[in-house]
C-alpha cells in the first residue's frame, strides 16, 4: 500500500469542499491538471474500446460496437468457445488488420470507463474497488509497463495511438499521484 494514497484522499476532499463554496473557479491544482492530461489518453479509443461498461468491447476510432456479436464473457476474455484469442494473437496481425498482444482480453466491468467525466474517471482510478485493488503506485506501474497499455502506442495497422507520447503520459500520471492525486472538477 502506498502511504501517499491515503494521505491525499482527505486533502482532495477538502479541496473539493472548499472550491464548491467559491464562485470563481480557483486555479486547478498541478495534480488535477496533470490528471486532465492523463484522462485525455485514457479516453482514447485504444483504452476505451476494452474498458467498457457494457457486455461487449467496442472497436475502431469511432468506438463502434465490436462486429459480429463479440461478447465480454464471464472473465472478460470472451465467452466459452469464442475467446478473444480466437482472433487476437500475441502480436498485431497487420495483414488482417487485427490488433494483438499476449492474452488479449477486456478490462473487467468494474474498470469500465465508458462515459465517465475526468472527475469520475479520476475517482474510479483511485478507487481500489474500480481499479483492480491497485494503489496509486500500482496504477502508475500499470500505466508504465502493462503490455496492453504499451500496445496502445504500437497498435498496428491504421489504428492511431494516443497523441501524447507514452513517456509524457507516464510522467503526467506520476505528477498527478505524487502531487496529491487530485481529481479535476
Amino acid at each position: 500500500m502506498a502511504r501517499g494514497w491515503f494521505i491525499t484522499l482527505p486533502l482532495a476532499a477538502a479541496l473539493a469542499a472548499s472550491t464548491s463554496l467559491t464562485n470563481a473557479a480557483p486555479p486547478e491544482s498541478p495534480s488535477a491538471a496533470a490528471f486532465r492530461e492523463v484522462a485525455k489518453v485514457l479516453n482514447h479509443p485504444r483504452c476505451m474500446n476494452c474498458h467498457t461498461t457494457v457486455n461487449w468491447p467496442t472497436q475502431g476510432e469511432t468506438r463502434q460496437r465490436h462486429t459480429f456479436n463479440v461478447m465480454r464473457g464471464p472473465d472478460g476474455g470472451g465467452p466459452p468457445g469464442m475467446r478473444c484469442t480466437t482472433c487476437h494473437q500475441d502480436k498485431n496481425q497487420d495483414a488482417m488488420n487485427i490488433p494483438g498482444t499476449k492474452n488479449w482480453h477486456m478490462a473487467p466491468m468494474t474498470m469500465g470507463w465508458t462515459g465517465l467525466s475526468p472527475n469520475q474517471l479520476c475517482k474510479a482510478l483511485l478507487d481500489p474497488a474500480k481499479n483492480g485493488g491497485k494503489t496509486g503506485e500500482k496504477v502508475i506501474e500499470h500505466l508504465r509497463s502493462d503490455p496492453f497499455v504499451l500496445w496502445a502506442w504500437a497498435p498496428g495497422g491504421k489504428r492511431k495511438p494516443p497523441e501524447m507520447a507514452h513517456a509524457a503520459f507516464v510522467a503526467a500520471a506520476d505528477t498527478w499521484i505524487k502531487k496529491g492525486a487530485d481529481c479535476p472538477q
Partner: protein
Amino acid sequence: MVSRRLVIFGGVAAAGGLAVGYALMPYSTLDRAKGMIAKEGATPLSAWVRIGTDNSVTVIVPHSEMGQGVHTSMPMMLAEELDADWSLVRMEQAPADMAFANRALAREYLRGDMSIPSWMSGVAEFGARKVAESMNLQITGGSTAVRFTGVRGMRMAGAAARWMLIKAAAAKWGVPESEIVAKQSKLSHASGKSATYGEMAAAAAAYDPPVDVPLKAKKDYTIVGQPIARFDIPGKVDGSAKYGIDVRLPNMSYAVIAASPVFGGTLKSVDEKPATAMKGVKKVVKLPAAVAVVADNTWRAKEALAALQPQWDEGQNANVTQATIFAGKEAALAKGGLTEDHASGNVDEALKGAKSVIEATYKVPFLAHAAMEVMNCTAHFEGDKLTIWGGFQDGLGAKARAAKAAGIPIDNVTLNHTAMGGGFGRRGGTLDYLDKAVAIARQVEGPVQVVFTREEDMTQDFYRHASLAKMRAAMDDKGKVTAWLHTFTEKHDPPEAIRVNYDFANQAARYASDTNPIPWGPWRSVDHTQQGFFIETFMDELAAAAGKDPFEFRRAHLEGAPRHKAVLELAAEMANWSVAPEAGRARGIAIRDAFGTIVAQVAEVSIGADGRARVHKVWSAVDPGEVINPATFTAQIQGGAIYGLTAALYGEISIDKGRVVQQNFPDYEMVRMAEAPVHEVRFIESGARTGGAGEPGTAPIAAAVGNAIFALTKKRIRELPFMKTTLTASTATGAANG
C-alpha cells in the same frame, strides 16, 4: 383433355422421334449421352439413370449442387417413379456436355410457359442469342431444377425405366406385364418368380423406352415428400468435400488477382519488381484490366500482389458516386418516357380522378453476393487443350465460355465440376473469374488456381442493382385500391417480380433501365428482392392510410387469387396474427409469388437499445404446388429469408469514385447466429405446377420486417438497409399489429 405433361411428350416425340426417359432430349444426342454414362457392369436405361448389375441405381443429375439439395431431390423424383430401393440409389453429376443440356428449360421457353431470364440466355455463348442456342443451357438457377428437369425429365425417366424392366420380366417369365409387381428395386410375380432390377437390367435395355407411361399418383409416393437425407452432406462435415478453391494438382501454382478498382478502368502499367523479388513468386501476369501474381502458395501471391502499385487508367467512371447514381435514377424517372411493363385499366385517369393520391418513394442500394467461397477457378493449358476445375451454376455454359475465352473449339475443353461454396446467382452467367483464369493460365506453365481475395470478391462483383421506386395509388371510400402506379428503375428478371396478385382495377408498372454503370448480376431472387420491398411496403402504407389491418387489407384484395389468399391466411394463422405479441414487439406481413412458389411471411420484431431492429420470429406459409423434400425445402426457405434479412438489415454496397467502398465482412455485415430468427415454415401442397425452392424465401422478408418496424414504431422506413435508420420503440407497443 390432354394433360400438360402429355402435350410435352407428344410435342417432343413429334419433333425429334426421341426416346422416352429423357423426354426432352433429341434422339441425335441419345447415344452420345448413353456412352458417356455407361460403365462396366451397368446398363444405361436412359440418360438419367443407370442400373448396375449389383442392383445399384445411379441417377445422373445435370445440375450443380450448391446447397439447395438438388443432387438429392432429382434422384428422389426418379427413384419414386422407378420404385427403387432408396438405399441403393446413388447420384452422379452429369458431365458438362451438350447431351445433358437443360433442354427442359429451353422447352418451357419455347412453349411460352416461362421466359428464360436474360442472364441465362447470355450464358450459352455460341454466338447470337437464338432460342436454339439457349438449348445448350445446363443451368442451376432461376429455381428451375426440380421444376423442369425433375418434373419433365426425372419422373418420366424413372417411370420409363420401370416399364422397360417390367416388359423384360414379362417376356422372360411368360406372364402378362400387368401381373408383375415392381417394388423396392425388385420385380416379382405371384408364381414366385422374382428378380432384382439389376438382374433384369440388361434384358430391359433391349426395349425401346415407351412413348407414354403413366406416372404415380401422389398418394402412392414413398420417397417424394419425405425428408430424405442429402447425399452431399457427409462430405461437408469431415472436410472431404472438394470445392473449387480446394483443387490441388501436381505442379499447381496459385494466382491472386486485382482488377481495376474503378469499373471500366484498364491497367496502364505496373512495376513488377516489388513482387518478383518476393519469395515463392513465379510471375506477374498483366491482363488488360487486371494484374495477378502467380506464386507457390496463395499467401505469397496475396502478399506479393499487395506489394504492387498498379497504375490504372480509370476511364469514364472515375467520378461516379452513390449520389450521382441516385441523382441519375431520380432524373430518369422524372424525365418520363418510361417503358411500360404491364398495364390494365387506365391508371392515369383513375389517379387523376381520385380524391386523394398516396405516394411514396423507396430506395435500395447495391448488394454483393458474398458467397462463402470466394470466386476462383483452376485452369490448365496443355497445347490447345484446356482443362477447367471449378464451381459453376451452369457447367455447359461455363465450358462454352471457357472455349470462347481460350479461342479453341468447345470439344478441346474439359470441365470438372466441384462443389460450390454458395452461388446465389454469382456463379451463373457472370463468369469473369473463369475468363480471368483462362487468360492467366495461358501465361503459366502447369495448372494455376486463380483466387479472388474476399476484398476482390466484394469489390469486383456483379451487383444487385441499386434502385429507386415511386409508387402512387388511390383508394375508394371502402379502402379498395382503385389505382396502382408503380414506377421504378432497373428491371431485370423474372417478369413476375413486377406483378401484383391483388385485384387492382387500374394498374401499371413503368421503368427506366441502365441508370448506372455498375455491373449487374442476378442476386438470389433477382428483382423480387427490391420489388418485394417496394410493392409490399407500399401495400402496407395503403392499409395504414385506409385504417385497415395489414393482413385483412391484403386479403380483401386477393379475392381473385385463391392460392395467394390461402397462403396469406395460413401465415396469419401460424403467427397467431389476431393476438398481439408480447410487449415491445410487433409483427409485419408480406406476400410474394416468386419462381412459381407463393410465400407469405410474418416477421416479429423488437427494437434494441442500439436503435436497430431485431427479428425474433418469422413464419412462412409456402405454396410451391408440391414439395419433393420437405427438409431441404424448409432449409431453403429459411436460408433464403436469412439472405434477404441480411440485406434488409445491413446490406449496402456503396460507390465512391467509381469503386466499391465496402471491402470485407467487417463493413458488409451479415446476419449471424445471434440475429437469426426462429423461423417456422409450413407448406400448402396445392397441386399447382411445381414451384422453385431456392429463391422464394428471400422475396418478402424485407417488407415483412419493415412493416413490423412500422407497426412497432409508427416510423415508415423507405430506404434499405434498415440499420441506416436509428429507431426507438414506440411506448405503445404490443397493442396491435397494424
